[in-house]
């Protein structure tokens, strides 16, 4: 990707030049990142996002690796929570369930990327800040809601019907997680009639604070 072209403010004027592979996904990511920049007027595309975009592969493998990054985050978060969050009763059971589900997602996505001939993204190092159970549940809610929006945003860009079907099977589970965590938070499980999608750049920016 040509870095100089990232400076262009008008989305229309942006020409994305990607070496090899297809253009559509990178173009959409770029437009998403630039849209953020255009709206907020500054270089909102953070170094992490720039790096992620530069490293990102095109096509379904790239999307699966994006999803894998999020699943790594959630899996680590819940695994840590087993000892850190001091959850009791229902919440404790929920943490165990979520940890198991996210770990299964990590394994499945990793295997699928390999099966498609891609290289699974490495597990990032994370830093989750919370000091009590309440803080944990709040953060969990953010992660689950963001995860749903991330999958919903990426879904329409997936090329393979099989990968889409599988991603759909995962996002529904993330939505179920989100509802259950929200109930623990005494928040509405389904606050809106539609779960709005987020672009990859928006999602990466949202999770960047937790990546060391």
């Amino acid at each position, binding site marked *: 990707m040509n870095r100089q072209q990232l400076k262009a403010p008008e989305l229309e004027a942006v020409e994305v030049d990607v070496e090899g592979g297809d253009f559509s996904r990178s173009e959409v990511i770029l437009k998403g990142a630039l849209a953020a920049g255009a709206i907020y007027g500054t270089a909102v595309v953070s170094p992490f996002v720039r790096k992620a975009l530069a490293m990102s592969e095109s096509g379904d493998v790239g999307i699966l690796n994006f999803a894998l990054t999020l699943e790594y985050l959630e899996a680590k978060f819940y695994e840590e929570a087993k000892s850190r969050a001091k959850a009791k009763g229902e919440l404790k059971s929920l943490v165990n369930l979520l940890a198991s589900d996210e770990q299964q997602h990590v394994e499945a996505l990793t295997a699928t990327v390999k099966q498609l001939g891609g290289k699974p993204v490495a597990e990032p190092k994370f830093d989750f800040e919370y000091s009590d159970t309440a803080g944990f549940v709040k953060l969990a809610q953010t992660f689950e809601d963001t995860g749903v929006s991330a999958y919903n945003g990426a879904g329409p860009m997936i090329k393979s019907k099989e990968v*889409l079907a599988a991603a759909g099977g995962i996002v529904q589970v993330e939505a179920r997680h989100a509802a259950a965590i929200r109930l623990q938070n005494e928040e509405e499980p389904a606050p809106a*009639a539609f779960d709005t999608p987020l672009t990859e750049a928006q999602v990466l920016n949202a999770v960047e604070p937790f990546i060391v």
Partner: protein
Amino acid sequence: MPELKQLRDPVSRRKFLAVGGGSTALAAFLAACGDNGGTTATTSTMGSSGGASETAQFGKGDVGILNYALTLEYLETAFYAEVVKSGLFKGAELETIRKFGREEAEHVEALTAAVTQLGGKPAPEPKAEFPLKSAKSVLELAGTVENLGAAAYLGQAPNIQSPEVLASALAIHSVEGRHAATLNTLLGESITPDGAFAKPADVKTVLKSVEPFLVG
């Protein structure tokens, strides 16, 4: 209603689902679209020559899929409305039911608009009646309906042609997942009856399940 019970029976689906172990997780993941195990309750629409023609009775292509979804949303809206009227629920549970009903009504609006925008004719509102014997049986029915609704959307997602229509369907699909998990929680049941990977349901299965509630 044995068919409905079967849909909620996790045992027949759990063949490929296991905790831990990369290969079993992958099997589950791939089974989510390939349904290699031939579970009795659901069949995947993946790879079958059916595809969008599964919903042909509702219209062509994406219009057919949207109208299929619209029909289900009409039923969900009607169901929740009757439940609210029944007086079986109070307080926080009643509020949840009201809210879900409002959301299903929004889905009806959005799907109707989408069909119209595509130049299609929106499916008519079906006449339906639901058994409302007790709070518990109603919650069970709600749980069944929501889990089924989510599975129905998941089943059709790969058949949708337009990325915009797919985006809308996904935005609704996940909300149905939230509804399903909430009802499951109220019933003291697992929020993820299919495990870490939700399973799709095909049109035949879904329509067979809702048929008992259709009047006339």
